[in-house]
C-alpha cells in the first residue's frame, strides 16, 4: 500500500485524478441523466428552432399569400383555416415561429450585453459609477415596464428595430441587478485581487476572472428572460404596437382571430383557431422553463439527499 509509505512527495499528494473528458463527452453524460421534463423541454425547443429555420420549406403557402375565402374552416387545403383577409393560418404559424423567436432571441442577447456589461463594471468599480448606474436602473424599474414600452413605442414607432432596442433596454435592468449581485461576491476573491496586483486591465478582469465564475446564474437567467421577452413581444403585438403586419407573429394572430372564439358552438374547430398561437406561446415558455430548472439544479451545487 502506497499509503503506508511515509516519504513525502508533493506530486503524490492527490493520487487519484478524475479522468479528463472532452467537453462533448461531458455534455453527453449530463444529457443522458437529464430528467424527463428537461428532455421534453429540449425536444420542444428543438422542434421550434427547426420550424423557425426551415419555415420557407415547411410552410404550405407563403407568409402573406391571400386566398379567396376569409375565415375559412379547417380543411385539407387549409389545415387551420384562413384569417380575416384570407391568409393561410398554418403557414403563418410556421413563419411566426421564425419572427417571434428570432426577435425575442436578439432582444434577450442585447439585454444581456447591456445589463451584463454595466453590472460587471458596477461590481468592479463600487464607487460613484456604481451609484449612478444603480440609481438609474432603480428609476427605470420603478416605471411599469409594459406601459413604459407602450409609451416609447408610440413615440419612436413600431419598427422591429425600435421594438428590439426598447424591450432590450427595459429588460437589461433586471440583468444588471443579477449580474452586479453575483459579481460582487466574485470581485472580493483573492484571485481577482491577484489579477489587479499583476496590473491587468478592466477588460481582462471582467472577461477572464469574473465572467466564467458567474456564468451559471446568467445562463439560467437568459432562459427565463427569453420567456419574458417573448411574452412581452406577444402582449405588445396583441395590443397592436408590436410586430406589424404583414409579418406573421403569434401575438398578432391571437388578436386577429380572437373573434372566432364566439363561434365555437357552431364549429368547434374554427372556435379553437385563436387558441393555437396562444398554445404555441405557452408551450415554448413552459419548455424553456423546464430546461432552465434542470440547468439551475445542476449548477446550484445542491446534491439530492436520497
Amino acid at each position, binding site marked *: 500500500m502506497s499509503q503506508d509509505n511515509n516519504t513525502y512527495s508533493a506530486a503524490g499528494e492527490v493520487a487519484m485524478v478524475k479522468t479528463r473528458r472532452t467537453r462533448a463527452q461531458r455534455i453527453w453524460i449530463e444529457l443522458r441523466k437529464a430528467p424527463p421534463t428537461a428532455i421534453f423541454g429540449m425536444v420542444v425547443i428543438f422542434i421550434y428552432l427547426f420550424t423557425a429555420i426551415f419555415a420557407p420549406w415547411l410552410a404550405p403557402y407563403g407568409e402573406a399569400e391571400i386566398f379567396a375565402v376569409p375565415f375559412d374552416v379547417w380543411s385539407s387545403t387549409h389545415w387551420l383555416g384562413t384569417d380575416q383577409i384570407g391568409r393561410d393560418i398554418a403557414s403563418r404559424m410556421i413563419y411566426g415561429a421564425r419572427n417571434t423567436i428570432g426577435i425575442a432571441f436578439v432582444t434577450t442577447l442585447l439585454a444581456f450585453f447591456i445589463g451584463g456589461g454595466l453590472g460587471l463594471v458596477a461590481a468592479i468599480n463600487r464607487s460613484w459609477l456604481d451609484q449612478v448606474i444603480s440609481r438609474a436602473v432603480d428609476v427605470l424599474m420603478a416605471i411599469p415596464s409594459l406601459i413604459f414600452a407602450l409609451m416609447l413605442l408610440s413615440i419612436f414607432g413600431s419598427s422591429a428595430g425600435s421594438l428590439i432596442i426598447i424591450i432590450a433596454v427595459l429588460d437589461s435592468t433586471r440583468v444588471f441587478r443579477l449580474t452586479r449581485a453575483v459579481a460582487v461576491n466574485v470581485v472580493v476573491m*483573492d484571485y481577482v485581487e491577484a489579477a489587479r496586483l499583476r496590473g491587468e486591465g478592466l477588460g481582462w478582469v471582467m472577461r477572464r476572472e469574473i465572467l466564467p465564475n458567474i456564468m451559471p446564474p446568467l445562463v439560467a437567467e437568459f432562459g427565463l428572460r427569453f420567456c419574458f421577452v417573448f411574452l412581452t413581444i406577444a402582449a405588445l403585438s396583441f395590443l397592436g404596437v408590436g410586430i406589424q403586419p404583414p409579418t406573421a407573429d403569434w401575438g398578432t394572430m391571437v388578436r386577429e382571430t380572437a373573434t372566432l372564439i364566439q363561434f365555437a358552438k357552431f364549429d368547434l374547430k374554427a372556435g379553437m383557431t385563436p387558441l393555437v398561437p396562444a398554445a404555441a406561446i405557452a408551450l415554448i415558455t413552459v419548455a424553456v422553463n423546464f430546461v432552465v430548472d434542470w440547468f439551475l439544479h445542476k449548477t446550484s451545487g445542491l446534491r439530492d439527499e436520497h
Partner: protein
Amino acid sequence: MNTEHNNDILLEMRDIRIEGFADEKWNPIIKGVDLTLRRGEILGLIGESGAGKSTLGKAAMGYTQPGCRITGGTIHFDGQDLASMSEAQKIHLWGTRIAYVAQSAAASFNPAHKLIDQTVAATVREGLSSDAEARADAVTLFEALQLPDPANIGNRFPHQVSGGQLQRVMTAMAMSPRPDLIIFDEPTTALDVTTQVEVLLSMRKIVEDFNTAAIYITHDLAVVAQMADKIKVLRYGEEVEEAETRQMLAEPKEDYTKSLWSVRMLHKKAESSDDVVLSIDGVDAAYGRSLKVLHDVNISLPRGKTVAIVGESGSGKSTTARVLTGLLPPLKGGVTFNGTQMPAQLKDRSKDQLRQIQMIYQMADTAMNPRQTVGEIIGRPVEFYHGLSGKKKENRVVQLLEQIELDASFYDRLPSELSGGQKQRICIARALAAEPEVIICDEVTSALDQIVQEGILRLLMRLQEENGISYLFITHDIATVEAISDEIVVMFQGKVVEQGLKDQILQPPYPEYTNLLLSSVPEMDPDWLTNLAENRP
C-alpha cells in the same frame, strides 16, 4: 454479569466503519477503529485534516453527518448500544449525558437569543432541573470558566462577546446538564494563541472539577499534550498508534507520529544584511476616514533574507501588506524599493514595479480562479510580464512546475483537482513566474497540515537560496517564524513593538507584549500549561 472493571468503561467503540457519499459512490472514511474511554478520562484524537477525526468523534455520540453512514462496528455508551436506539432516545441522550463543543462557536450560537437562554435550553427541556436552578447553575459555570462578570454576561447576545468568551460559553452550555462525556471538536483552532491559552486553561479546569470524560479533537499536538491523558493518532481513517500522553511525546513509535511535529524541528540560521531591498517608512494607514489601523510603521527588508511579521489578528499585519502592494495608499509615509520611492497607488505603478513585488495568499482556494487550469494560472504572468507565448510559454510553465516539485502532468488540471499543499505550490509558482525580488507571504502555511507546511517552508527556503528572493512573511505561528525567518517584526495594535534578528528577539529580556505572545505558544511538554498558569499572575 457487570464486573467492577466493565462499569468503569464509559464508551466502547469496536471496529467502527463509516462511509461518506462523494463522486456518486460510497467511500470509506473510517476503516475499522477501536476506541475505549473510561470515566473521567480525556482522550486526544489527532491527525491531519481528512484523517477522519471529526467523523469518529461524532460517531461516539451515535451521530453521522448527512451524506455519511455507519456501515459496521458497535458503539456502547455506558452499557447501552447506540445503534439500537431510536432517534428520539439519542436526542434525549445528547441533551443529558453527551455534549458537543464545535470548532466555530460564532456559527453555532443562534444570534437572536441571549447566551444564558441558549446555555440552559437543553437542561430545562430534558427536565433535569427547573429553569431557575439551571440559570443559577449557569452563572456558577460562567464563574468557573473565568468569564468576566459571570452574573450578567448571560444576558448578552452572541455578537456582544469575543470569540474566546463565546467558546467558553459554549463549554458552559455543554457542562450545564453535567454530562458524562464531552466531545471537543477543534475548540481553539480559530482563536489567537493568547486567547487559546485562557480557553484551554478554563476548559481543563472545569473538566477536571466535574470528573467528566472528554474526547479532544485537534490537529495540534502541542495543544493536545496539555489536555489529554492519552492520545490516539489517526491517518486515512485508520489508527496509527495510541499511548499515554507522556509516553507518546517521549518516544513515539511510528514514523508518521514523529513527522507530525516536523515543522518544529526546522530551524534556519539567522543572517543579517545591510543591503535593504524594500522599506516601509513611517506609514500611517486607515480604512475609510476614521478607522486608523497603522501608526508610524517602520519595517525594512534586507535583500535575499526573510523578515517575519508576527502578532495576533487585528494587529495590522495584513494591512501592512496592503500598503506595500498599493491596494491601500497610506495617509503618511511611503514605500521605498531599491532606493526609489514607489507610487502609493496601485494604478500609478509601472508594470515592472508591479512585477518586482508578488504576493502569496493564505487561502490558496480563493487565490486561484476555479475555472482556469494550472497552465493558464501560471502562464498568465509569464505572458503578461515577459511576453512569452505559445510553445515558449508552455516550456517556461513546465520549468516552473519542476521548480515547485510538481511535473508537467499538472498542466491541465483545475484547482479543484489539487490538494491543499499542491494549490499553495501553484500559487508560489505564479509568484515565481513574474521573477520578482520580493514575495509577500500572508499566512501561507496556516491553513495547511503540519507535514505539508514543512514541505512548503522547505520549498520557500530552497527558492530563496536559488533565486535570492526576499520574503516578507506574515504569520501568527511562532514555530513557522522559528523555521524560516532571519529577522522578526513584532506588531501589536497597529504599531511595531520591535524589529531585530531572530535570535535577538527570541532571547529574553522581552518587551511585555512579545513576552505574552511567545509564552502563549503551546510547547510539546505536558506540564507547560500547568507551569504557565502558576507563573502568570
